[in-house]
């Protein structure tokens, strides 16, 4: 009786302790951010410009730049990504080609983001002459999240019930029509969730942007102008601006809340809608 209990104990204690550590540390993170940033958190952050190198004022131009960057990234990644994912799910005839492509995707998705930033700066800023601009940053970001969108489309389409494709074939629909009017609409919730996750990833990205979209923290005049993403703003305040810690922590809260809300929504949809391929 006691021997059985004693055999269980180390595992139970270990598992509980590990979970407590993990949860405790992240809880400490949230509390620490809130406490350090509390003086600077207010609704005014959304409308005021940063002043005193960001130690005072708000985040409005930074939020605007971030929105533009992410929009460009999605504009690049979603069309190409959906097409690529559709290829994987229904277009590829040979399994070997499919697996090879999925391997390429996994490799792209795991590449260090700073390498994306370096290459984006070389290709978009230097070779294409776009310089430090929202366009350079957005395009780089788009290439970064492209594998995520492809994967999301692939998963969304392959988790659809097989009857959909068979019924469409029975009706002699072309594959294009099947895709456009049957499969994609049916996959839309899961696909939307996947795109939202990619969006969250893009918001969190920093290293890819410091060489491409620049550091300027005023309102960008156009997509060819430089602009600062929220993540870069946080980095600058924390590392380069003495006394910037409270603002950095406040901005970090904003970013964290944004990412968590988007991802919670996305995962809620995903868990409800995506079945494992049967």
């Amino acid at each position, binding site marked *: 009786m006691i021997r*059985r*209990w004693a*055999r*269980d104990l*180390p*595992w139970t204690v*270990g*598992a*509980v*302790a*590990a*979970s407590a*550590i*993990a*949860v405790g*540390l992240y809880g400490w993170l949230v509390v620490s*951010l809130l406490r*350090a940033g509390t003086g600077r958190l207010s609704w005014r952050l959304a409308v005021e410009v940063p002043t005193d190198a960001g130690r005072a004022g708000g985040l409005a131009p930074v939020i605007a730049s971030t929105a533009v960057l992410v929009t460009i990234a999605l504009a690049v990644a979603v069309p190409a990504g959906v*097409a*690529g994912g*559709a*290829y994987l799910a229904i*277009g*590829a005839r040979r399994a070997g080609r499919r697996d090879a*492509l999925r391997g*390429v995707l996994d490799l*792209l998705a*795991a*590449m*260090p*983001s*700073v*390498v994306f*930033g*370096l*290459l984006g*700066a070389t290709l978009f800023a230097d070779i294409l002459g776009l310089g430090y601009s929202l366009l350079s940053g957005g395009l780089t970001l788009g*290439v970064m999240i492209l*594998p995520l969108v*492809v994967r999301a489309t692939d998963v969304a389409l392959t988790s659809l019930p097989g009857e959909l494709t068979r019924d469409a074939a029975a009706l002699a629909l*072309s*594959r*294009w029509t099947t895709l456009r009017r049957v499969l994609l609409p049916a996959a839309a919730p899961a696909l939307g969730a996947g795109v939202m*996750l990619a969006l*969250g990833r893009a*918001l*969190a990205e*920093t*290293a890819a942007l*410091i060489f491409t979209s620049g550091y300027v923290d005023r309102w960008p005049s156009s997509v060819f102008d430089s602009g600062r993403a929220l993540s870069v703003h946080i980095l600058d305040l924390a*590392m380069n601006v003495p006394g910037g*810690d409270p603002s*950095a*922590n406040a901005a*970090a809260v904003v*970013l964290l809340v944004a*990412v*968590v809300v988007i*991802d919670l929504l996305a*995962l809620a949809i995903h868990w409800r809608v995506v079945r494992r391929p049967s």
Partner: protein
Amino acid sequence: MLSVRRRDQGLALVLRAAAALMVVVLVGMLALLVREAWPAIGGGHVDLWGRSWQPSAGEYGLAPLLVGSLLVTAGALALAAPVALGVALFIDEVGPRWLAGVMRRGMAILTATPSVVIGVWGLTAVVPRLGRWHAPGPSLAAGCIVLAMMIVPTVAVLIERGLAAVPRERRLAAAALGLSRGTLIRDVLLPAVRPAVANALAIGAARALGETMVVMMVTGNVPQLPGGPFVPVRTVTANLALEMPYAAGTHRAALFAAALVLTLLVAALLALAFALRPRGAAT
């Protein structure tokens, strides 16, 4: 109105083009890396084993940077692995069902925490406390701790998926044999989940190796070979972020060479993860 056949041919073309784009991007990235790094590699300026990284003196020894990256990653893995395993076991077996469900979803969300946010917390909350306990604050040790925290959710989620994939019959058989939970875990679940754990660790390592923000903010950024854990170091990634904005000529090429080495390391880790992946598991 296009005929059905034409429409489908067009579709096939578009889809295939999109897939080809993926391959073009990957190959293009590698090609560009090699092209930009070539002046430093071909000219023999960059030394893989060189111990001194001092661009101002024309010394481009990669060893301190590579060692910094590898040690921080190894340390983070060593710290994260037991915690992640414990969390996964809690979710899968040990914890009460309602709490386990919450934890599973919570971990999934936490994998998306922005690295700058973790870096800010590391810089403002962890490093000062670590510094008070054992000077200095920003160090290899700080990097390992904060980086470990960053990868725990990712590794835990992957291990938990492996645990969930263990066939039900095995648990039922263990219950029928009257095995205790401890024996179930130690002798049935853990052996079954070894490939998943190895895979999860390889993926976690790749993520840690490629991380820039966290290490830049908490490791102190001194390019040197560390004599112990409480010494500031600099990783390849942080070095790229810090020096790229002003590097030119040979220096710039050397930075690209470092980036190339890093990319190859990550690719090797991914290949390892692929080789170690559990057979027949749904990804």
